């Protein structure tokens, strides 16, 4: 017997779509100087956020974004059934330490920079399957914590190629609920890990683009939809060159998405901010989705969005041992159906 809510090979179609009743977003100063500044709940100027270390600052950002989401929905911690979160730091400490403070039953997730969309997909399944009424999902990243873990000390002078990206400092959180008002999650397409043999750690867009293209094409096949069914198709953090590659790969598969396609990593900074190819990190798709995209959906400027969280599944160890960089992409369809019961 087939699963009643699964269609095609990789897609879930929710029979009663979970509602995004609230979001919270906190960003750093560079993101606050960017074109989307007005869509975030809070901009933090200090990279330490008044804490002793950058890791603690990142935790505080995630904590604040979740508190903000709760506060906007007029809910308390004990109104939430489960919390789903992940981040880039070793053993996802930003998430676990935030869960320690909030005290909500917690499942840690890791999908690198695709974690926001991974947690949305899993959270929606928990609600759609009847296992929870309200789920809190979130993720975070911080330029300084990511730099020191994956690359060099922050004050180390280096020159980056134009394909390099800038890790977003920010945290985004959403509350999914069985009922309420707000945009709804109608579909989720779970991605496969795709490795096309790319190993350049300074060109993550090229490593992730095949996974994004694979998931998008699979989503169209599973649902029988076309790019024209969406007002916007948006990937998580492929940035300038990854976006072009995704368009090209999908063209080869027979889908032209170029007219309605953009990337969170391109939107979050302006060209004059010297971030090279664009933004990256868990926080990139999280804050753009929780801030900007929610605003577009809530104002009904866009009615249906296909968002694809993209992740590069590497570690500093795998990189040093000469492994290539596999990518993953998880797609979620968000529609602006208001006042659902």
């Amino acid at each position, binding site marked *: 017997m087939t699963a009643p809510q699964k269609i095609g090979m990789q897609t879930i179609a929710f029979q009663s779509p979970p509602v995004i009743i609230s979001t919270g977003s906190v960003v750093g100063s560079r993101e606050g100087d960017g074109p989307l500044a007005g869509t975030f709940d809070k901009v933090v100027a200090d990279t330490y956020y008044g804490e*002793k*270390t*950058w*890791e603690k600052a990142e935790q505080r950002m995630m904590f604040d974004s979740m508190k903000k989401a709760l506060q906007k929905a007029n809910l308390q911690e004990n109104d939430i059934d489960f919390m789903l979160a992940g981040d880039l730091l070793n053993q996802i400490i930003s998430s676990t330490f935030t869960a320690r403070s909030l005290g909500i039953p917690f499942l840690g997730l890791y999908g690198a920079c695709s974690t926001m969309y991974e947690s949305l997909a899993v959270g929606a399944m928990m609600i759609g399957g009847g296992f929870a009424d309200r789920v809190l999902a979130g993720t975070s990243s911080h330029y300084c914590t990511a730099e*020191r873990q994956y690359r*060099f*000390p*922050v*004050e*180390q*002078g*280096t*020159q*980056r*190629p*134009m*394909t390099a990206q800038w890790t977003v400092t920010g945290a985004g959180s959403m509350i999914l609920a069985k009922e309420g008002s707000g945009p709804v999650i109608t579909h989720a397409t779970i991605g*496969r*890990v*795709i*490795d*096309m*043999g*790319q190993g350049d750690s300074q*060109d993550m867009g*090229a490593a992730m683009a*095949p996974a994004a293209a*694979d998931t998008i*094409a*699979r989503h169209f096949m599973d649902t029988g939809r076309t790019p024209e069914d969406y007002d916007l198709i948006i990937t998580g953090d492929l940035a300038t*060159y990854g976006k*072009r*590659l995704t368009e*090209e*790969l999908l063209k080869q598969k027979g889908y032209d998405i170029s007219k309605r396609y953009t990337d969170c990593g391109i939107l979050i900074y302006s060209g004059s901010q010297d971030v090279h190819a664009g933004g990256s990190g868990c926080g990139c798709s999280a804050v753009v989705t929780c801030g900007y995209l929610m605003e577009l959906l809530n104002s009904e400027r866009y009615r249906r969005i296909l968002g694809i969280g993209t992740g590069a599944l590497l570690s500093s160890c795998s990189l040093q041992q000469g492994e290539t960089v596999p990518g993953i992409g998880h797609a979620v369809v968000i529609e602006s159906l208001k006042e659902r019961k």
Partner: protein
Amino acid sequence: MSGAAISEKQKQDYAKIVKQFKPAQRIWRNIFWAFIVGGFICLIGQFFINIFLSQGLSTKEANSAASSTLIFIAALLTGLGVYDEISRFGGAGGIVPITGFANSMVAPAMEYRAEGLIFGVGAKLFTIAGPVLVWGIFTAWAAAILYYFFK
């Protein structure tokens, strides 16, 4: 799309597309600014050497004193968050001179202070400079042996 395995052919085809879409490295621009920035740092070094010579130090002493001064300035600029911008702009011009070496020592020292003085600063101080020292010393040693036998 069936099956997960990706053939070598697919990987090669993709590598071609990636290459085609990759922006050209701005090599000439980078070389030019590396020359200007690196040259300027050397100019400052020479300026200090001249000062120390005029104050009565021997050439050898003046060289050492100038190096120490450059190291101090680079360390200070690293602490002020300026030196990484110089290297970002100047590339090798900021990394190769002795000031770049100072930067690669001070940056980890600042960074790993959060993990404590022993396992943080103590263990990680040479993360960037370490490989340079190890292979620099090894190369000097190998060259010395060759010199001993073939001079």
